[in-house]
């Protein structure tokens, strides 16, 4: 009987021990509050200060910006970037992190302590980034060190400015804009993006002014069909070199489409500027396995064929070239043969073939001529410009843009690039091939 008592007591003790459920209290949600020094810099002024840089430059003054987040990666259309704006202008910041939007919503007020970050020139536009990192993105914890949230986010903090396509100016770069009475040229027909590569779509207004809307194939709306008819588009107005581009933040940025197409009353479209008949960027697929041309399926163009008789050319990315390009190994013949290009629509125009080349001059003392890459168009050898490049001049993997005139307008055009074993001493990288109408100032070769 005594034993039964013991047992009972023991059972009771254990029951007491275990009866308290292990329940966690929700942490208090403290509204973020920035307590540091007030802002002493504006985005416009910052851009003026660093207007002439080429390489990333360390910001070594205690500048502090106060800005509002206007764009993030919520839909996947923007990747590893946030766009911020103050009263004077907008700028983007490269951040090495996914799903930044979970912490930096549109309408979030932030303070950026700039000292220690870098100003970076990309596509001839300034952005805030970091030195010696992949794509000059700011490592995440370093970003957290310099960027401080203030208050809870409020969408109404970011109000787009209504503008017209005919009135774009440099001060609007990377700001949030609203375009009324515009339409997608392929509205109702094509998706926002092709499934395998970032795709440019054309948006026009009633006056025939047009602009690129750049859509990532990773955006969650990439497969949606472009809205039909006229409507209002909210977007970040960005610029790459001389090209104006719009970036949609999420599908909610397309508003009230389905109206009659503006300007369809009969006015003729204005000159669209340079027209592109063929463009190949080699996509954005994962090429970590370094596929050969024959094995690669991520080309932008599906209706032309790509081949390489040598089997030596492979697709690669490097920290400088972070989307796929072609690698022509040193001292070997390598080919890129493109067949089936249709340029017949450009029959009345002067067409040029554009491509980008970089030589792998990694070792000190290495030098070679970029004309090691020969070009044949429909069996005719083209006159490629001579350009010596050397490690000593800082040409290691420096990109040169080359444009060749005299491209025929026809169906089934064949173009062949040939990296010559005899001249390609150190390896060549080939990227961004396009056939466009010639602008007035075609430069045959220039550093990019």
């Amino acid at each position, binding site marked *: 009987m005594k*034993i039964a008592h*013991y*047992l009972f007591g*023991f*059972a009771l003790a*254990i029951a007491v*021990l*275990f009866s308290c459920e*292990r329940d*966690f*209290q*929700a*942490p*208090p*949600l403290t509204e973020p509050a920035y307590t540091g020094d007030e802002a002493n810099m504006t985005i416009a002024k910052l851009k003026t200060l660093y207007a002439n840089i080429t390489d990333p430059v360390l910001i070594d003054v205690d500048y502090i910006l106060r800005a509002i987040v206007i764009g993030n990666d919520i839909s*996947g259309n923007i990747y590893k970037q946030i766009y911020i704006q103050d009263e004077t202008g907008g700028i983007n910041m490269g951040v*090495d*992190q*996914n*799903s*930044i*939007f*979970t*912490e930096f*919503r*549109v309408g979030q007020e932030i303070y950026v302590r700039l000292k220690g970050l870098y100003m970076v020139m990309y596509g001839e536009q300034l952005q805030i980034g*970091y*030195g*010696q*990192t992949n794509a000059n993105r700011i*490592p*995440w*914890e*370093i970003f*957290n*060190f310099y960027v401080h949230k203030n208050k*809870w*986010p*409020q*969408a109404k903090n970011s109000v787009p400015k209504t503008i017209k396509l005919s009135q774009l100016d440099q001060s609007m770069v990377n700001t949030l804009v609203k375009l009324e009475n515009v339409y997608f040229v392929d509205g109702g027909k094509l998706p926002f993006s092709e499934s395998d590569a970032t795709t440019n779509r054309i948006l026009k207004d009633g006056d025939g002014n047009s602009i690129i809307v750049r859509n990532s*194939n*990773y*955006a*969650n*709306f*990439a*497969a*949606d069909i472009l809205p039909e008819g006229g409507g209002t588009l909210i977007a970040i107005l960005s610029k790459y070199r001389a090209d104006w581009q719009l970036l949609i933040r999420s599908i909610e940025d397309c508003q009230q489409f389905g109206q009659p197409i503006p300007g369809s009353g009969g006015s003729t479209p204005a000159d669209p500027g340079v027209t592109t008949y063929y463009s190949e960027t080699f996509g954005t697929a*994962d090429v*970590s*396995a*370094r*596929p*050969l041309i024959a*094995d690669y399926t991520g080309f932008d163009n599906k209706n032309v064929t790509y081949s390489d008789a040598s089997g*030596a050319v*492979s697709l690669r990315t490097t*920290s400088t070239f972070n989307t796929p390009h072609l690698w022509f*190994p040193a001292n*070997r013949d390598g080919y890129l043969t493109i067949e089936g290009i249709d340029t017949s629509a450009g029959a009345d125009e002067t067409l040029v073939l554009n491509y980008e080349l970089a030589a792998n001059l990694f070792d000190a003392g290495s030098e070679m001529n970029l004309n090691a890459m020969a070009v044949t168009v429909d069996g005719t050898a083209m006159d490629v410009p001579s350009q010596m490049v050397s490690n000593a001049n800082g040409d290691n993997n420096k990109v040169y843009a080359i444009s060749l005139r005299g491209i025929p307008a026809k169906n089934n055009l064949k173009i062949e690039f040939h990296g010559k074993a005899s001249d390609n001493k150190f390896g060549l990288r080939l990227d961004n091939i396009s056939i466009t109408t010639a602008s007035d100032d075609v430069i045959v070769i220039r550093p990019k």
Partner: protein
Amino acid sequence: MKQKLWLWIFLCSSFPAFAQTADVKGRLVDAVSENPIAGVLVILRGNNQTTYTDDNGQFLFRDVDGGEDVLVFNAADFHSTEETVIIPVSGTLDRGDIRITRRPGDNFQLTATIDEIQRAMEDDDVGLSQDVSAMVIFSNDIFLKNAGYQFSQFRYRMRGYQNRFEERYINGVNFNDQIRGVFNYASVGALNDMTRNGDVVNYFAPSAYSFGSIGGSENINMRAGNYTRGGKATISLTNRNYYARAMVSYSTGMQDNGWAVSASIGGRYSHEGNIEGVFYRNISYAFGLEKEVNNHRISFMTFGSPVERGQQGSSVQEVYDLVGNNLYNPNWGYQNGKKRNARVVKSYDPTGVLSHIWRISEYTTLTSGVGMHHSRYGGTALNWYNGPDPRPDYYRYLPSYHRENQTAFDYYTYLWEKQCGKDNISQVNWDKMWEANHINNIEGSGSAIYMVEERRRDLFEMALNSTLNTRLSQRVKLTAGIGLKNSLSKQFKTVDDLLGAQYLLDTDKFAERDFPGDEQTVQNDLNRPDRRVYEGDVFGYDFRFRVNSADIWFQQEHSYRYVDFYFGSRLKYSEFQREGKMRNGRYPDSSFGKGKTHRFTDYALKAGLTYKISGRHFITGNISYQTVAPLVDNVYISPRITDQAPENIQSMRVFSSDLNYVFSLPNLAGRVTLFNTNFYDDMMRSSYYHDSERTFVNHQLSGVDKVHRGVELGVNYKLNNTWNFDLIGSTAEYYYSNNPEGVISYENGKESGKTETVYMTDYYLGGTPQTMGTFGINFFRNYWFLNLNINGFGRNYVEISPLRRLASNYIGIMPPEAEGFDEDLYNAYRILTHQEKFKGGYTLDLGIGKIWYLRNRHSVNFNLTVNNILNRRDIRTGGYEQGRVNPDYPNRFNSKYYYMQGINCFFNMSYRF
């Protein structure tokens, strides 16, 4: 046809039946208290007979050959004792009371240096489990009984076998589950007094309750009438996952009215154990009844050991070095100032066994049992939807990822090393997850970005076993049985904690990116699309496995003066089927409803021979061949979401043999063994999370061949009654011997059914030392016990990832002499395909104990064991390669490791009444 054959064999081999023989009997008592000792295995070695003492301590051998023989007594908490007997040609030898010495301590087998939960180190994300051999019952084999305890801390597996080849029975009913094939040791946790006695079969030797298995069998005897009258209370303190344990048990023994009752209650606790963030709360109970009527004994036993515990995780060496702790646990973090573990296991396995023993005649017994087992098993884990990876040791959050930028590298190193403060990044940041969900409530959809899910793997199992033991003649024993088993496994996940979010949208986060705009494919359940789920709701996946099996077997043992032999055979039918409860958007046609039934018919044959050079020297050999149906868990390419499986699923084949020399001199006893086992056509599946594809990748292998071969040695030298010495060791090689085919499928549906050869030939099986030994010095005087062991271990390899052994990973990489050779890439190829071998070494263990007998025949005992007394913290006991491959960064996805705890103490005090 077969029956006639048996009969013929019986007739030929059993003459002369029942010639002149003798009986041997005795009674086993505690050397001091003179209380009878029940449940002890008694072996009459020369006659090859075994029996158990009853609850009065008595044993009896009938019809044995006269002459000199050796009686061996073997039990967990007693010194094993041998004595030579001279058996008369006829009549009865009554040995009277045989006194044996109790040793202090507990059921060593289950409180070995790693407890039963750590035995199965499982990583749900990887689908790997690195189980250890666990022995509940004390073996009579000198090698096995030492290895089972001493080697388990090194995650040693007997002969390198998977745990599914170790069979566990309770009261004659099989308790290896049919899903993963293993016994759930957690179900008998903290019930050590109840699981003390039983019957061990070493490897594939003949057994009295089952056909057996190459990894050995144990039958835990939990019948109430099997326990001696009396009680025991135990308190233990330790520095393991729990720090306190308490147990009380009491048994009545078989009373005059034919009833026996036995009960035990216990518990283990820690708010935080030796490893940070790991807590432990467990209670256990057992209750048994037995009634004896004439020749029938009917018993019922029910027990359970509910537990809630925080889990340890493995990490990469970079992290261990940064925090300066090889037992770093990435699973926990502070929430509102309190430590919270993201991976909490809640399990409860109530079990009931009803059994019946019918002594049909003096020589024939029929044992039947029905077991029922319901397991509620759930493990929580973080999940996240379109948010940054919250795991602190994700590779992008480590300094090495930022190597190209010195400032970033230094800053990350600083943040990791400080390990405290607001910007600490070395643990899970719960507060940040709550904040992200809160912001999403204000300015977003309100659907959880971060949440805790509980992955459930519940099991309901019923088993029936019936075994007939009989003697066909004095020299021939026949054991035959049938088994039936039915299992239902329910696998699904539920919302455990939304961390402040309003709800969760039940779509696949991985498919969302790869099928943008595709409203169908992303659905987890097309029957209920875009469903909002709340805490407690089932989401993600939900399916059942149904497994049924039936088997019939026999084995026959013959003993003669110079030769013993046995043979046996088993026929087994099994079938399994998956049933989906959700129609998955990636597999709309193969996910919902009942799938194909897979059927298997398997057979097994075994035989063995013992040649008795003399009563003290034996040569034995065993050989077996069997086919084994694949485990349902290994067959499907992605069982959570589809019924798809490889086309030609077949049973694995196992060929096993060993040759032993066993000797038993007055001062020197031991065994030397050569063994070889070949596995053909095994199946396995591994998984990993591919962060750039944002999906789980499943890699299902079939046709895997393996070879396990080696040497075992166990020797005990008894200098005198005070000192004796053990030398135990094994060296072996366990390796893959072919290049099987593997099927890769992504759970987001992007890739499905891509088949490719996996180059695995000559890679070693990982996770267990292939060379292992110990030298033990044991001292006993005046009920003081001391022992010291030096353990040596080596040749332990990392568990290879089959995904790294595909040729397609390395296309474009040339060997040194070829055109286009790239040294970096070639080195990457070599790094990624190399199998790491862990450093070997040695450790020291010490044990000390004492028993005091009180005047009322009660006793108090204490014992303290200290393992790894040199406090070595750099001993890798296991690890696995990550599946992801990137030849540009060969060291980015490094292996994850498990380390042995440093100094490890277990103090035990018990009072026996």
